[in-house]
Structure formats: structure tokens, C-alpha cells
């Protein structure tokens, strides 16, 4: 008996001979792949960095989240409406919280450190930007401080690969 979770949170179970096969979640209807064994509980990094209280500004979250921007300016001008088709927008803050990760474009980074300085969770965002690796740190709140404050447009939100379905 294999026990696992769907991305919607519903607990699912399948018999051992169904390992690796595709099935449908009885909760949300999404297609899932049955894992080969019951997965270990996810491991959170043991060291929790200190929160930097001076930099956490909740008022910025709603106004600057990508979802809010694109909804507000959808019918404003050709730059933004034509651009809307190009961007990986999110429909809601909640979607961003659950599905997004911060992805750097290291070619643009000048290592100024504004991103790391403003991270409320103390993540080394600058280090990720230097190496060009997406932030998989489970401490990341997708609060968008780093994305918005970067003066060079290095950071953006993208959907986690697990949520991008191939047709």
C-alpha cells in the first residue's frame, strides 16, 4: 500500500502494483503519478536564519505582487497588454504562494546585495543569483521583496516545474 499526498492536499493511497502509473486524484481530479514508495516526510533545513525585522514591509506585498499588476493594467496600453501574453503571470496571491519560486537571471546580476539585505528570512538570495539557481529553500515566503527591490531586474517569479503540465 502506497500512501502519498496530492498537490491539493488530499491524502491518497494506491496498491503497490500501481507504482509509477498515472491516476486521478479523487479530490481535485488532477492527474497524479503514483510514487514507487511512500515518500519520507519532507525535510526542512535545520538551521532557521534570524529574521531581519527592519526590512519586512507587509504593505508592499499586495501592491507589488505580479498578479495585482497584470490585472490592473490589462486594458491600459499596447505595451502592457501585448506584454501580458509574454509574462508568466499569476492569477492570485494564493497561487503565487503555493506555486511560485524565485528564479534569477545571473547575467544581469551585479552582486549589489539589495536582495539578500531585504529578505525577511535571511536567505542568501545574492548567492543564488550568482550561481543562477532557483530558490528552493523552504523558508522562502514568495513575499516578493527581493524581486521588487532588485534594481537590475534579475529576479522573477516562475511556476515550480511540478505544476507545469505537458500536453
Amino acid at each position, binding site marked *: 500500500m502506497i500512501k502519498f499526498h496530492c498537490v491539493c492536499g488530499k491524502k491518497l493511497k494506491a496498491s503497490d502494483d500501481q507504482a509509477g502509473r498515472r491516476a486521478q486524484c479523487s479530490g481535485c481530479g488532477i492527474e497524479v503519478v503514483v510514487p514507487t514508495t511512500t515518500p519520507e516526510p519532507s525535510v526542512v533545513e535545520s538551521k532557521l536564519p534570524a529574521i531581519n525585522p527592519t526590512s519586512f514591509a507587509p504593505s508592499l506585498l499586495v501592491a507589488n505582487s505580479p498578479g495585482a499588476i497584470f490585472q490592473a493594467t490589462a486594458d491600459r496600453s*499596447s505595451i502592457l497588454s*501585448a506584454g501580458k501574453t*509574454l509574462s508568466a503571470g499569476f492569477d492570485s496571491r494564493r497561487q503565487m504562494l503555493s506555486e511560485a519560486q524565485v528564479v534569477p537571471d545571473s*547575467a544581469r*546580476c551585479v552582486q549589489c546585495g539589495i536582495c539578500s539585505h531585504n529578505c525577511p528570512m535571511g536567505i542568501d538570495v545574492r548567492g543564488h543569483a550568482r550561481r543562477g539557481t532557483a530558490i528552493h529553500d523552504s523558508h522562502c515566503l514568495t513575499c516578493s521583496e527581493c524581486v521588487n527591490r532588485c*534594481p*537590475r531586474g534579475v529576479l522573477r517569479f516562475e511556476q515550480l516545474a511540478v505544476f507545469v503540465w505537458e500536453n
Partner: protein
Amino acid sequence: MPLRYVIVGSGIAGLSAAETIRQIDPHGSVALVSEESHRFYSRPGLAYLLRGDIPQWQLFIREPAEIKSLRLERINAGVASLDLAAHQLTCFDGRQIVYDRLLLATGAVAIPPSFPGANLVGVVKLDGLDDAQRILRAARWRRPAIVVGGGITALELAEGLLARKMRVNYFLRGKRYWSDVLDETESEIVMQRLRHEGMNIRTETQIKQAYGSRGRIQAVETQGGEMIPCRLLAVAIGVRPRVELAAAAGLSVRKGVVVNERLQADAPDVFAAGDVAEVIDTQTGASSLDVLWPIALRHGQIAGANMAGQEMIYRKETSFNVTQLAGLKTTIIGAIGGGKNEDLLAITRGESESWRAAPNAGTVTARHNTDRVRLAFDQRQIIGALVMGDQTWSRPLHDLIDHRVNISPIHSALVSGGNTALEQLGKFYQQWQQAVQSASKPMSLPRS
């Protein structure tokens, strides 16, 4: 026999070279000679230090443990001369340093102003951390400051001084800001925002002389005869590569130290990287200077690899930069400018000479408030772009330009311009993206 690598300069080119050499050759000794004694820092970040966005300690880009693992010998000295035959450097303090492989990563330095009084205390530039610290110490509430020059550095200085609560006057020799890269609309957007921030901008104003008392600046006189009080004069009229060491040693020097695509200078075992290097295109013989951090980084990696015996070729990509002008994020890619700029004697930091090479190209512009997209194109491809404000178009245009995507299918739509041009381009870009992705995607597996 382990090799002795010597690097002159502690900027990003020198650091990247040291890191690359260490990755390839764990046994050789790596010495880094520099006039600066600071830990490695982000030079572009100095603008944000001036503005107060980050404290000084945030500028340092490597942990002490990372530096220790490089096993670097840091020598704090200025290099006076280079003896190519003897493979030896002589420092100003008399020290002599022998090398097997040498990298010149001496960078660029701000061109000093030429008017009388230019050496008074209070006349400042922004090259490195020492300059930034000097400016921070000298900035005083409500004292008058004047900024001259153009390009990105002038605004970094002006906005930094404004953030320090000085009364900032920006003197432009010409009629508008950065006239050889921005067009009139873009200059106007920037200048309006600067005025809104509280800056006093004067066009067609040139300084004739600076006056001081007890060696400290007190006022400037304009060409028009006006005397204006001034306690800090920030100058950003261009930079020049620091080629003196190379030139005196007999290396080939044009605008910078001439290097080939392996970043080798024209003497054995000598390389150059970063702002000081001028890479000559082997096919065309052409070159253009870039004073850009990511390019200096790349130079350092490639020079370091070649020094350590692993051959790597530098392939010039389209020069671009993303910066903030009066708080507006602005992407500049490829050949998008041209014409004259009276405020700059030479290229300034954060720029590429190749930006000014826009020949008779078609242009598409679109504007909404302070969001602006401008692109230059010819029959076959988009050759340059400028995106101000909303940055949605930044990456798509960068992709199209860098990959030299053939835009002839939509060329007529671009020529007709206006709103439809960008919409057509958006659809074209999406199709191109999908075509590229499906070409590299592996075959999808059948359902079980």
C-alpha cells in the same frame, strides 16, 4: 614545477580569474596585487550605498571562508612597471614580483575635469569604494552640490547626493540628458522625474572654473559668468582604461590593452581582462569597449582558464545593461543610440560603445506614461532595444536580439509601427519560443 600566477587588480575580472585558475590548477600559486586593500566588493553596488539602500558591509561579495579556500596571496601595492622579458613586476614600494602568467585587470579610471580648480578638496568622482566613502563623509544636509557629466554614473552621483539631503544641481552642457543613448522622449521622462525628486537641472551650462578657500571648494563660475555656491562637485564625464603599465612595457594598446579572443595580449604569458581590455574581433578587426560588470566577469573567467592551460574562447554577445534612471528600471540592449553627447568625453561606467552604433534603422516606439519600449531593426533582425519602466519586454527583446532571430515575417508590421507592431511582435515571440522549446524537448512518453 607549480606555476606562479599574478593578477594585477582586485575588481570582478581579477577575482573571477583567480577563482577560475584555482578551479583548474590547485597547485599553482596565485598572487593578486592591488592598490585597494578592501575585500572584494560590488562596484555597481556603490550607487546603492550612496543612496542608502544598503550598508557598506553588504557590498562585499565573498565570505571570508570562500577567500581562504582560494589560497590567494593578496599584495597591497601599486605596480610601477612591467618587464616583459624578465617576467617581472616592480611595485612603487620597491617590491618585485615574478610571474609565469600575468593578468592585467587594472580596470578604468574616471577622467578628471580640466577646468581650473579641479584639484580642490570637494571635487569628487565615483570609481571605487574609497571614492564612495569620501563622498559620504563630505555630504552635508542642505549644502549645495553640483553634478556634471552624463550617463549612468552622473545619475548615481546626483541621486546619491539627493538621498544625503544635499541641494543638488545637475549641470548639462547639452540640451538633454544622455543624448547619445536616449531619445528626446526618454531624456524628457528622466529629467522630469529628477526634477520631481527635487533636483535642479540646468541645461546648456558649462563650468569655467572652480573657486575655493583654504584648498576647499566654495563656488563655481559658469561659462556665462554666473557664480554659484558649491561645497561638493561630482564629476562623471567618462572613464578611460588604465593602460599605462601595458603601454610603458611595450604591449599593443589602442583604446585599451589589445587582446585576442583568448584574452591574450601580444606578449607571451600576458593576458588582460575587464574594463582595461579591448577584445579585437578576429574576423572583422573591429572592437568596442564595454565597461560592464558581467562582461568583466566573463573576461576574468576566460582569461583565467587560458592562463591555467584550459583553452576558452570569448564570444562577444550583445552588450546590455539594466539600471535605474531616476528610479525607472531601464534595459538597454545592442545598437540603440547615436549622435553626440556634450556631457561625456568618453564612455562611462555601465555602458558599451556598441550601443551608439545604430545606423539607418527602422524604429518602433510605444509609450504609456513612463513605460516605454523602443526598438531598432533592419530588414533581417532587431538590432537594439530600450525598455523603460515596465520590464515585461526586456527579456523577450533580449532573446530576439541575442539570438539574431529573423524577423522578416513581421518586418512590415514593425515598419507600420504603433500599437499593432508590438502586438504582432508579441505573438511572433511566443511562436519562436514554442518552436525553440519543442525543438529541444525530449519525446513525450505514452500514457500507461
